[in-house]
């Protein structure tokens, strides 16, 4: 049995590949200083922001596209991408949001009417290049929490943005970060003041909609001393034959005794089984644990995109700070993922944990790439890494590239890696007990991912499991 049935099971339909039929303002494809000036003007940005964008653009022009990832794709023509697309109606309240967008979000399971939402989750909805709606802002403001689009933040909170933007991911950090710095359009800004525990989950839902448009969002979250926030992002895009570029930058700053939990459920359109279409997801995510006892926890479930290239990282600068990375990456169809993390231990007694679960099916290629770097001053630093790969079928691949640089003799580093195959024997055992083949595959895959799902907020863990089932649907008969 097995192979064919498995293939059926792992080629689940992408059910959210619909297009929202809205009128949009889209600039013609191409990148130039004029386009950047146009974006900045559209966003009514102050001149300092435009200057920074133009600096980034100059740097980007001198940089080379990186090719060290274990992925292959046709060259990207950066002049064929449109860098700005916005739904035409600019809403100022929910009543003014285009009903088609409300509908679309409803279909995605994210109603934007506050009274209809899951209890205690505030949402920033970003379509293509703009934020269309941020909910619960008033409620959050009572606690001094700022939760708004990055465009608003640039206008309304320039001192915070100037202080922290580019402080974790410099504009010339890498090719895609530089591109993003020049052309970023929207994204989310969060500031949690000292000692405040954010009373609800914050989330951003990104939707790429327009054709031939890149999405370049920028997220900046600052957790001031002793604060806590749990933030989640979700992503989806229509089914299209063309590849679309998504090059985001996420910067997190965590002060003394503060904590950020950052969860991602990434479900960009993956393309078809022959590798046609799908999102190129080239993302730079980095957190700075700036103060003592600060903590950052990344949890990601990556099921979408034709190509994923991302390494949510932690710079553990404060003494006793903690970085965690929990990841499930699924590649099926012809998807390729090169993902992992970097844990940079600078402070004393810093602690990091990496749990990475890669699942490959059909022609999927899954690569874990991770760096654990322990600086000379990071005495008693500790890292534990575990990278497990699960193969479904025999045309897929799993690759692991763990790097370690240790300059401190009193640091402790552990690494474990396993590669297993869902065996016919396991499936048969469960089926002999009356469990259908599809449920059996799901059960084994969920078991494999358990340590990561346990780290997601509950609603998202449920969503992640459902998404995983859908993605792997059809690998069974």
């Amino acid at each position, binding site marked *: 049995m097995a192979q064919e049935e498995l293939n059926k099971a792992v080629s689940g339909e992408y059910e959210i590949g619909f297009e929202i039929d809205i009128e949009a303002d889209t600039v013609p494809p191409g990148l130039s200083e004029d386009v950047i000036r146009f974006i900045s003007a559209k966003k009514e940005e102050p001149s300092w922001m435009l200057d920074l964008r133009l600096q980034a653009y100059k740097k980007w022009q001198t940089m080379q596209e990186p090719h060290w990832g274990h992925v292959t794709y046709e060259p990207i023509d950066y002049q064929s991408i449109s860098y700005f697309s916005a739904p035409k109606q600019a809403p100022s309240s929910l009543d003014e949001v285009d009903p088609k967008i409300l509908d679309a979000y409803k279909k995605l399971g994210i109603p934007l009417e506050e009274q209809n939402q899951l209890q205690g989750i505030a949402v920033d909805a970003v379509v293509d290049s703009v934020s269309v709606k941020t909910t619960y802002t008033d409620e959050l403001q009572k606690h001094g929490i700022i939760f708004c689009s990055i465009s608003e933040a640039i206008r309304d909170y320039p001192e915070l943005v100037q202080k922290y933007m580019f402080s974790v991911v410099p504009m010339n950090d890498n090719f895609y970060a530089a591109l993003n710095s020049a052309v970023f359009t929207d994204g989310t800004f969060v500031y949690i003041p000292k000692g405040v525990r954010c009373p609800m989950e914050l989330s951003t839902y990104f939707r790429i909609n327009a054709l031939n448009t890149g999405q370049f969002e920028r997220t900046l979250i600052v957790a001031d001393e002793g604060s806590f926030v749990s933030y989640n992002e979700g992503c989806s895009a229509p089914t299209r034959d063309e590849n679309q570029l998504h090059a985001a930058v996420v910067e997190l700053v965590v002060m003394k005794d503060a904590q950020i939990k950052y969860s991602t459920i990434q479900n960009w359109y993956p393309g078809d089984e022959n590798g046609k279409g799908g999102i190129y997801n080239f993302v730079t995510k980095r957190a700075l644990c700036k103060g003592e006892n600060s903590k950052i926890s990344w949890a990601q479930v990556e099921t979408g995109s034709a190509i994923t290239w991302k390494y949510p990282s932690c710079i553990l600068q404060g003494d006793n700070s903690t970085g965690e990375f929990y990841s499930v990456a699924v590649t099926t169809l012809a998807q390729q993922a090169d993902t992992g993390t970097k844990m940079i231990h600078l402070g004393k007694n810093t602690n990091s944990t990496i749990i990475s679960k890669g699942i490959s099916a059909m022609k999927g290629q899954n690569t874990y790439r991770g760096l654990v770097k322990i600086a000379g001053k990071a005495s008693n630093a500790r890292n534990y890494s575990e990278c497990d790969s699960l193969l479904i079928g025999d045309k897929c691949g799993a690759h692991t590239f763990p790097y370690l640089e240790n300059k401190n003799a009193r640091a402790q580093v552990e690494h474990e890696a396993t590669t297993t195959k869902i065996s016919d024997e396991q499936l048969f055992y469960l089926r002999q*007990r009356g469990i259908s083949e599809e449920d059996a595959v799901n*059960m084994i895959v969920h*078991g494999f991912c358990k340590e990561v799902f346990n780290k997601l907020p509950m609603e998202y863990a449920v969503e992640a499991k459902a998404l995983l089932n859908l993605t792997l649907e059809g690998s069974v008969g």
Partner: protein
Amino acid sequence: MSNNIMDIQDLHAKIGEKEILKGLNLSLEAGKVHVIMGPNGAGKSTLSKAIVGHYDIEVTKGNIRYKDKDIVSMEPEERALEGIFMSFQNPVEVPGVNNAYFLRTAVNAKRKFQGLEELNAAEFLRAAKKLVVELGMKPEMLNRSLNQGFSGGEKKRNETLQMMMLEPDFIILDEIDSGLDIDALRAVSEGINRMKDGKRTFLIITHYSRILDYIAPDYVHVLKDGKIIKTAGSELVAELEETGYGALEES
């Protein structure tokens, strides 16, 4: 109408290119304990795998009628839901899958098939914990990953637990006594004996008679070279111990 739960007729089955069962005929009376004995390589495991629909086995000819239906083309889970259970010789480890969650899923799949209401977590645990104690298992076994790191004895007890929870009609015990110490053998046998209710049918596959000191068979079937060559009562066990399989000729 016969009182047989299973009738196997002219069964030919191969593993890869090799034919293992060569026209096997076997009738199994319902509610009885049947033992299949035979030398290594005779086809005992192949027979049990053919009954449960294992992927290694290709049935090329003949049929297996169970409850008056030919099951040869049925999926393994369909056969299981119809009441066929096999206790595996070497149960596979499934990391990360919680033993209790797995067992509840299986129990509820069966209940759903039977049109019964599914058990909630509390109802399930109450029933399972009681059996766990009776089988001499540590209660934490329910919270561990399915079979992962279980000793040989723990695996067999866990198989017995599944059998008792699923309440099957037709139970295949494939070398259940292999690798068991005397305490485990006793606990497993007691569990099996409690399942004997005059309606359930047992098919015990063994090449030792050790388990038969604890579970009294009604019929003994001798399998040799891919065929059943003799069927008799429990007295055949002692006879075989004395003379071995070599003395038996096809009857």
